[in-house]
C-alpha cells in the first residue's frame, strides 16, 4: 500500500519535472486546451442539472469547446520542434490553418445554435 502511494508520488513528481522542460509557447497552448475542456465539462454538468432541451444548443456549445481544444492540440503538434514530420512546416502556416479551421468551426456553431 505504501509502495503504491510511493509509486504514485514518484510518478507525479517525474511528470511534473518532465513537463517543466517544455517550452513556454507549448505551455500556453496546453493551458488553452485545459480551459476549453473545462468549459465543456461545465456545460455537460449544467445540462445534467437542467435537461438537454434545446439539444442543438447544447451540442453546439459542447462541440465548440471540444473542437477548439482538438484544433489547439493539432496546432501544438505542428508547432512542436520535436516532431520530425512537421519540421518543414513554418509555424505561421500552422497558426493560419488553426485560425481558418476555428473560423469555420465557429461559423457553423453560430448557425447551429438556434
Amino acid at each position, binding site marked *: 500500500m505504501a509502495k503504491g502511494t510511493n*509509486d504514485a508520488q514518484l510518478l507525479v513528481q*517525474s511528470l511534473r519535472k518532465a513537463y517543466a522542460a517544455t517550452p513556454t509557447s507549448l505551455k500556453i497552448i496546453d493551458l488553452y486546451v485545459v480551459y476549453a475542456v473545462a468549459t465543456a465539462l461545465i456545460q455537460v454538468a449544467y445540462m445534467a442539472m437542467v435537461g438537454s432541451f434545446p439539444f442543438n444548443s447544447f*451540442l453546439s456549445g459542447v462541440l465548440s469547446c471540444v473542437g477548439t481544444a482538438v*484544433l489547439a*492540440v*493539432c496546432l501544438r503538434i505542428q508547432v512542436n520542434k520535436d516532431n520530425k514530420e512537421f519540421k518543414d512546416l513554418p509555424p505561421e502556416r500552422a497558426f493560419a*490553418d488553426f485560425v481558418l479551421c476555428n473560423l469555420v468551426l465557429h461559423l457553423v456553431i453560430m448557425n447551429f445554435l438556434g
Partner: protein
Amino acid sequence: MGATSNASPAPLNSALSSFPSLKALKFTTKQQELLIRVSALALIYVLAFVVRLFSVLRYESMIHEFDPYFNYRTTLFLTKNGFSEFWNWFDSESWYPLGRIIGGTLYPGLMVTAALIHRILHFFSFAVHIREVCVLTAPFFASNTTLVAYFFGKEIWDSGAGLVAAALIAICPGYISRSVAGSYDNEGVAIFALLLTFYLFVKAVNTGSLAWSLASAFGYFYMVSAWGGYVFIINLVPLYVLVLLVTGRYSMRLYVAYNCMYVVGMLLAMQIRFVGFQHVQSGEHMAAMGVFFLLQVFYFLDWVKYILNDIKLFHSFLRITLTCAITVGVLALSIGTASGYISPWTGRFYSLLDPTYAKDHIPIIASVSEHQPTAWSSFMFDFHILLFLFPAGLYFCFKRLSDATIFVVMYGLTSMYFAGVMVRLILVAAPAMCLVSSIAVSATVKNLSSLVRAKSKSPQGSGKPLSGSKAAAKASADQSLPFQKNGAIALLLGALYLLCRYAIHCTWVTSEAYSSPSIVLAARGHGGGRVIFDDYREAYYWLRQNTPPDAKVMSWWDYGYQITAMGNRTVIVDNNTWNNTHIATVGRAMSSYEHEAYEIMLSLDVNYVLVVFGGVTGYSSDDINKFLWMVRIGGGVFPVIKEPDYLVNGEFRVDKGAAPKMLNCLMYKLCYYRFGEMTTEYGKPPGYDRVRGVEIGNKDIKLEYLEEAFTTSNWIVRIYKVKPPKNRW
C-alpha cells in the same frame, strides 16, 4: 524547367531555321509528357460525358424512372420559390391526408447543385430550362469524378495510374448504370462527393495539413447533403484509423487529419435537417465517436511516454489510465444502448450486415429489386476485366504499402463485400475497383515497356579475356534478353487487347442495358421498325387535363412520384415509403373485394384509382406481377389479408384455376375489366394475358363502385373513377 525550355528551342531554331512550324515547336520531354497527360485527361473528360448520352439521342431529353421525378419536382420548386421556401416546405400533395415535410426529409445536395448550375448559366445569359440542367447533371458530375480519380490515383501510386483510373471509371458500367443522362438521382452527385472526400482525406493523412483536413470535412458535408450512403464514409474512415493504430503505422499526421475532419465534418453534417442529431445518437455513427475518444487516449499516452523517459513509471501510468478509460467507455456505451438513447442500427443498414433480416421483418425493403443480393453475372456485366485486375492490384498495393494504399485496399474490400450483399451497392464499389485495377494496369505496363525499351548489351569483342564461367553466364544473359523483349511486346499487345475489349463491352452495355428511360418503352414491331409505347405520360397528362385540381389518386407506391410530378395531382402513397401502415392500407384496398375496398377508398377521399397492366403488350413490370408484394405488405399490418388465400397450391395463377379471392379482388377486376373481349395474339382465345401466358379466369367483370375513366392506347395504364356514395333516402 523554365531555363531549360528557354535554352533548348533557341539553338534548335537557329539550326533548323529552314524547317518552320512543327520542328520549331520542339518541347522538352517534360513538356511533352505534360501535354500528353493534359490532352488525355481532356479526352477522358469529354468521353465520360458523351458515353452517357445514348437515351437523349434515341428518345428525348427527359427524366427517367421514378425517384428522379421527385428530385425534379423539388428542384423546380427550389428554382421558382427560393431556398428558404424549399427548406421549410410542407407538401400536402402527397401522402394524403398526412402530407410530407419535404424540407426535413430529403437530402438537398442534388437539388441545390442543379439549381446553382441553372442560376450560373442564367447569369451568363444561357436561358436553359431547369429540366435540361437536371437531365445533364449526372454526366457532368461523372466527368468531374474522372478528374478526382486521376488525382486520387496520382496520390496513391503515380500519375500513370491516375490516368488509367480516370479512363477506367469514365466508362465503367457499374457507375454508368446510375449516372446516365436523365437519371437525375442522388447517386449521380454522391459518387463524386464520395471519391472527393476520400481523396481529400488521404491527402490530409499524407501531408498532415489542417487545410486539407478541413477540405475533406467540406467534402464530407457535401456527401451528407447528397446521399444516405454517407454512413459508409463515417464508418470506413474510423475503421481505417483503427487499422493504422493496430498495425503501428500511426503518426501525428493521422491525428491531425482525423480529428479535424471528424469534429468539423460532424458539425457540418448536423446542419442537414434530415440527418439531425444522428451523429451523436445513432448506433451507426458510434464507431466514429469511439475511435475519436480512442485517438485522444492513445496519443495522450504516447505523449506521456515521450516526456517520461522511464519505462516502469510509464507502465504504471498506463495501467491507471487504461483502466479508467475502458471503464468509462464501456459504462457510457452500455448505459446509452440499454436506455435506448443510442438507437440501434436501422433496418436499412442492418440488412446489409444480416442479409436475411429484411425478408422476415421488413417486406418493403425486401421487395425492391435493387436490394436483392448480387449474382455473379451482374458482377461480370458491371465490371468485366476489373474483376481479375482487382486482385492483381491488391498484390501491387501490398508490395508497396503506404498509408494511402492501405486506405484504398480497405475501401476496395469493404465495398466489394457490400456489393455482394446488395445489387445497388455495386455503384459504391466501382470507384474502388477502378482505382485498384489501375494500379495493376499501370505497374504492369510500366514494367513491360521498360523491358521493351531496355537496350540489349553488345558483346565486347576486343575486351579482356574472361574466364569460362563468366563468359557462359554473360552469353546466357545475352541470350535471355531477346526472348524477354519479344515476350514483353506480346504481353503488351495482350494488355492492349484486353483494354480494347473492356471499352467495347462498356459501350455495348451502356447502349443496350442502361440507357432506357423506363417511362417510355420501346419494342420491335412486325416489320422490324421501332414501336414506342408512351402510355405512362399519356395517362399522367390525361390526369392533369381531365380531372379536378383537388382530385386524389390511389395507386401503388411505385408511381407516386411520377403522378405528382407529371399529373400534378395529390396521391395517397409514393416512393418515399416512410409510412408503412399507409402503404399497407392501400395494399389492403387493392387485395380486398370491391365493396370492402370501397369503404377504404371512401375513408381516404380517393377519387381516382390508377393501375398498370401489361397483358396486352407483354410488359412484365405491371401491377399483377407486383400483386403478391401488395398482399404481403398489406398482410403485414392487417392480418385479415392472408397470402395463401390468393394462391393455389402455393402457385400464383390468374386463369380458371385461380383462387376465388384472386379472381374477385379489386386489382384483378381493375386490370382485366373488358379484357375478356380483347384478342391480343393471333391464334389465341380472347382474354389471353401475354405476360402470364394464360387465358384469364374471370372474363365477365362488372364494377359496382367504380367506373372506367381512361385506358391508354396500349392498355398499359388504366384509370378508374370512384363513384360517390348513393343517396340515402
